[in-house]
């Protein structure tokens, strides 16, 4: 009989330091683990606690799972102190991810902020794997400073891929940073996209998602073409524990990816 609360054991195989506060953890689950890009998992620190994360790895890889985690609360701080070899638990995958089929033939504008690039990395892998199905991929990524940029090694490689246009910006510049300075909203002018067949995907802190959404609505994106990753307290992941409710939805079950059209008439969605 299936126990929906039972985690699958996974071994922490590798740890990649992304920034001073962000690490990517590579797990090897005891059984193959499948997920769709944008779906999330509940990661259990044995005997300590559980927290929700969206994998940042390629969904086509079944025997490894990567999760990029910022030190933010109790469980994530303890995670950051772990060494290789330890066992963790995984439940999931949960929720609805990015509807890739609906992106076919379209210009895909991806806007990420901070560690919000983690789920988008998984999305990028999925798009790159079938890039011929999409018109183009445009990534606009904002970090607080150049030291806060994640996936520093991968970004230049992604930028060289066909049909791909990447621009990185930092809120606060420094002499070592040769690139763009300014909030990510400032990088959204004169985008090379056809609004009639384009979607926008936004993932980052709530305040960033709010202003990016307002900006791209202003640019002419339709609410149903804007996909947002909502952050809520998700304890069970199964639409049962109640915490992640937004209006008539549960973030864990009906999201975590929502179109802005689904959310726009609900009060206080950015809080």
């Amino acid at each position, binding site marked *: 009989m299936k126990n929906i609360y039972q985690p699958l054991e996974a071994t922490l195989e590798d740890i990649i330091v992304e920034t001073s506060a962000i690490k990517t953890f590579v797990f090897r689950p005891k059984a193959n683990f499948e997920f769709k890009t944008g779906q999330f998992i509940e990661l259990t620190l044995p005997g300590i606690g559980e927290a929700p994360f969206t994998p940042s790895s390629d969904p086509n890889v079944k025997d490894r799972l990567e999760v990029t985690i910022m030190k933010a609360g109790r469980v994530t701080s303890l995670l950051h102190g772990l060494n290789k070899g330890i066992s963790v638990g995984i439940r999931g995958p*949960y929720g609805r991810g990015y509807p890739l089929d609906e992106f076919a033939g379209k210009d895909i504008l991806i806007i990420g902020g901070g560690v919000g690039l983690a789920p988008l990395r998984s999305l990028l892998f999925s798009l790159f794997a079938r890039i011929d199905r999409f018109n183009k991929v445009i990534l606009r990524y904002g970090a607080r400073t150049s030291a806060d940029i994640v996936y520093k090694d991968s970004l230049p490689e992604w930028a060289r891929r066909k049909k791909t246009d990447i621009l990185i910006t930092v809120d606060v510049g420094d002499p070592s940073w040769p690139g763009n300075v300014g909030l990510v909203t400032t990088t959204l002018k004169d985008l090379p996209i056809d609004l009639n067949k384009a979607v926008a995907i936004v993932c980052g802190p709530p305040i960033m998602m709010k202003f990016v959404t307002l900006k791209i609505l202003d640019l002419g994106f339709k609410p149903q073409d804007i996909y947002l990753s909502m952050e*809520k307290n998700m304890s069970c992941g199964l639409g*049962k524990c109640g915490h992640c409710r937004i209006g008539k939805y549960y973030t864990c079950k009906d999201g975590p990816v929502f179109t802005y059209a689904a959310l726009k008439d609900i009060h206080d969605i950015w809080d």
Partner: protein
Amino acid sequence: MFKIYYIETAQFSLFFQTLKDNYRVFAPLVKDPAGQEVDYFYQSVCGDATFIFNPYRLVEPLKSFFTPALEKVAEYFNPGLALTETPKTIIFGVKNCDLIGHKIQDFVFLEGVEVDTSYRLKRENTILISSDCTDFKAVCHCLAWEIQPYPEAGFDLNLSPLNDGYIVEVGSNKGEELIGKYPGYFLPVKETQLAARQIKRGNLIDRLRRHLLPQDLVSKDIVQKLVRDGYNLDTWKQFMLTCVECGGCNFICDTCHCFLLADKKEEKQNTKLRLWDACLYANYARVAGGANPLKSRTQRLRFRYTKKFDFFIDNLGMPACCGCGRCIEVCPGKIDIREVLKDLAKKLQS
């Protein structure tokens, strides 16, 4: 159609005594006459405890049998805890408000993306023996939500007390099977007995109506609009002022289902626990890093009402309130769900 039987009082006592040989039996055995109203509590039946008929609902919500306040739900990674058949259980004393409220629990744990197997096993192995209300508490307001003070569905057996026994209405195959095991106790029901039940039910409804009429409660068909249109009213702030964030209203509510999963190490075993949670608690919606979409008590009080009267009407077609009034009795801040809704209605009319 399921059958309807009759059982005489003396036979019923024997039936009740016999059941505990084969089942775990819970019944309203304990009375607490301390207050103005007598309160009834569930207790496990043992020895020669005699059956007490509770005229109205018990203090505890029915959910406590299916999702206890604290329960170990998994052991990992060297699992010793397997999902097992729960002991066969019979619960007496259930009222219609409990059955209606329990539809919410069933919806949460039996439907949706995944079935909670442990809940399903408990549900399958539990026989609910409900009964008509013959009286009501001051806070009872089922009729305002168009819920009758006698069960119509959702029970396995229902008892309607008459002067010298009970009408026993069967509501499920489980109920029919139970009667099949003890056939000697039950008689075919007579038309006159059914007519007597009808009169008793009608009388109670009349009394309850007279009790509720002066309260001028809001009706089921407008309540969703009230909480939607009243989102920005000062009602929430006004009623929040006496909220002490005890979570009592959540825990005692038969429709509130929120829980937290927590992890614990017990000797060498890792365990996952499920604990009731309360949306009135300050940290209910807090996320890592400290952001909290429900920072204020005002927001949390409103969240409770929008969950009950907006979310559940959208998702299940019914409000998540059965009019049992448990939250009114339990609240140390005297926050009264009836008054909150009336205040919204009053302010939206003016």
